[in-house]
């Protein structure tokens, strides 16, 4: 187990290094780093001083190591627009994005697994077919447009739920959290549903196909022959076995949602890092873009690492073949 985890960790570090080089090459080497790193309003003299200070006159590889050293110290430059350290700007907004992502994922799991189970157990009934067909529809719905429709129906027409911001927040270990207040939950509802529709469709299809593949297995027949109750068979024998693909997909989806949160946050004015990155791209605020990318990559790798741990606990074969 330890060897397996160490190997995975090494792998993550390699990916992180490669990504840091890609980000470095993308943002610093392509295009003019002088334009992207130095305030365009500064004078020629100031520019030359900055070029020397930033080491832009040195070879590329040397620049990369300097960049790595700065990253290790958490120095990613200062935002041109906000005039504050870029990494701070990102980290301040990370909790809001994580809250939204987790809420969306929970919505998808809590609703998707039971619905998928119903569809998988009754594939030929009207309900089963209805659930599966609507999941294809959810796949096709463009997230951003659904967001607009949710606002139109629930906020403008019915006036039930607010459209922007996080609402009232509570301090939780130094972070702001919306899900602990009623007002915050009301603000969270629409964005979470919006972001959660795609993984919901995925959960439904995954659970349904997993159920259909597991049902004809020998051990299910055996459990039935033993006279176990259907509930026991479903929850103990069936669900446990379809958990493995579900856990994997939840992990993968977490990363996808983290990226797609950009869209939802823009629509619902959710003050997370996704909104910040769009503004930064439009304003060419490169230090913030770099900070966002590195933080996102680190979160991805952490999540993948966690998934590996859960995965190898659920399915011991993975540990062995992983070696």
């Amino acid at each position, binding site marked *: 187990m330890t060897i397996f985890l160490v190997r995975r960790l090494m792998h993550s570090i390699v990916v992180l290094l490669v990504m840091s080089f890609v*980000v470095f090459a993308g943002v610093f080497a392509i295009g003019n780093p002088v334009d992207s790193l130095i305030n365009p309003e500064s004078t020629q003299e100031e520019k030359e001083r900055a070029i020397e200070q930033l080491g832009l006159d040195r070879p590329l590889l040397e620049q990369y190591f300097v960049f790595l050293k700065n990253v290790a110290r958490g120095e990613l430059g200062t935002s041109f627009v906000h005039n504050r350290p870029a990494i701070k700007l990102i980290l301040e907004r990370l909790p809001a994005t994580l809250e939204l992502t987790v809420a969306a994922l929970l919505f998808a799991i809590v609703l998707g697994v039971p619905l998928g189970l119903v569809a998988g157990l009754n594939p030929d009934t009207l309900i089963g077919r209805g659930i599966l067909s609507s999941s294809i529809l959810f796949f096709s719905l*463009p997230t951003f447009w659904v967001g607009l429709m949710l606002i139109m129906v629930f906020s403008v027409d019915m006036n039930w739920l607010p459209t922007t911001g996080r609402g009232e927040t509570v301090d939780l270990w130094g972070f702001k959290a919306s899900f602990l207040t009623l007002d915050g939950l009301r603000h969270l509802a629409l964005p979470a549903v919006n972001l959660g529709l795609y993984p919901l469709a995925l959960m439904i299809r995954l659970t349904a196909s997993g159920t259909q593949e597991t049902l004809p297995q020998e051990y299910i027949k055996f459990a039935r022959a033993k006279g176990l109750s259907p509930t026991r068979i479903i929850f103990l024998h069936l669900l446990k076995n379809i958990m493995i693909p579900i856990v994997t997909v939840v992990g993968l989806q977490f990363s*996808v949602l983290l*990226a797609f949160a950009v869209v939802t946050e823009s*629509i619902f004015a959710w003050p997370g890092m996704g909104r910040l990155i769009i503004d930064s791209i439009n304003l060419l605020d490169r230090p913030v873009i770099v900070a966002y990318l590195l933080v*996102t990559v680190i979160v*991805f790798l952490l999540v993948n690492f966690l998934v590996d741990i859960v995965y190898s606990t659920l399915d011991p074969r993975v540990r062995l073949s992983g070696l």
Partner: protein
Amino acid sequence: MTNSPLERQSPVRRFWNEYSESKVAAFAFFVLCAIVLTAFAGPFLTIQNPYDLAQISILDSSMPPGSESMDGATFFLGTDDQGRDLLSAIVYGLRISLLVGVVSGALAVVMGTAIGIFSAYAGGRIDNAIMRVVDLFLGFPSFLIALICLAVLGRGADKVVLALVLSQWANFARIVRGVAIVEREKEYMEAAKGLALPKTRIVFGHLLPNCMPPLIVVSTMNVAFSITLEASLSFLGVGLPITEPSLGLLISNGYEYILTGKHWMSVYPGVALLITVASINLVADRLRDVFNPRLNK
């Protein structure tokens, strides 16, 4: 001697018969054909060119669906804030969305297939190295890859296509390589090699055709995904420029009017996008069932 009905059917006919066993999929196919035709014939069908300033009038702006313009034409889906007929704008937007989706999808397929086949055929270290790169790309959501590309490259239609290709090619490389590795070991490949056929002929004449079924399914889905991705990026203002108004930009333009109750400006472009993407997905879903020999009874 009478021919059995199966023998008289052409392959296309046989394929269609099997495909159309699902009525929903058959319907989706016709809807898709209609959409593509509409996009092609766009300029001849619409009542105006919505981007020719001489043809639109600001006096017609923000009119609800069904209103009549100053010169008597009907705006079936209303007009936008500039006085453009929304239906015409949707048809024009559809052209751009489909074009970007199909072009980037096709380029991603070509790039991914080439790399996948090369990787499988080369094997060994080269294969290993290429697959590492593929894994790296697949490890990140395509939306994020596209976003990174656009953050680095800037705006413009060509850059959007490049971003979409870069965010999708790895999928195809992985699939094609997977199929090719299995096919490589089969006897017909050995026979082809035994005949000392030229390498290009083995790859293009024998290997590639056998990789087609999964490739067709995934590339169909990929077009739908590219269209959605482009629309999302354009909606956020990092995709296509305002001079190439795709469906995503239309929705984005109507966004601010939703709160004032002028919902049609973003509802209908969205419906057009949804119908397009849903019909492509339904067709792809059915194609997968038809191609999958495990499900063929």
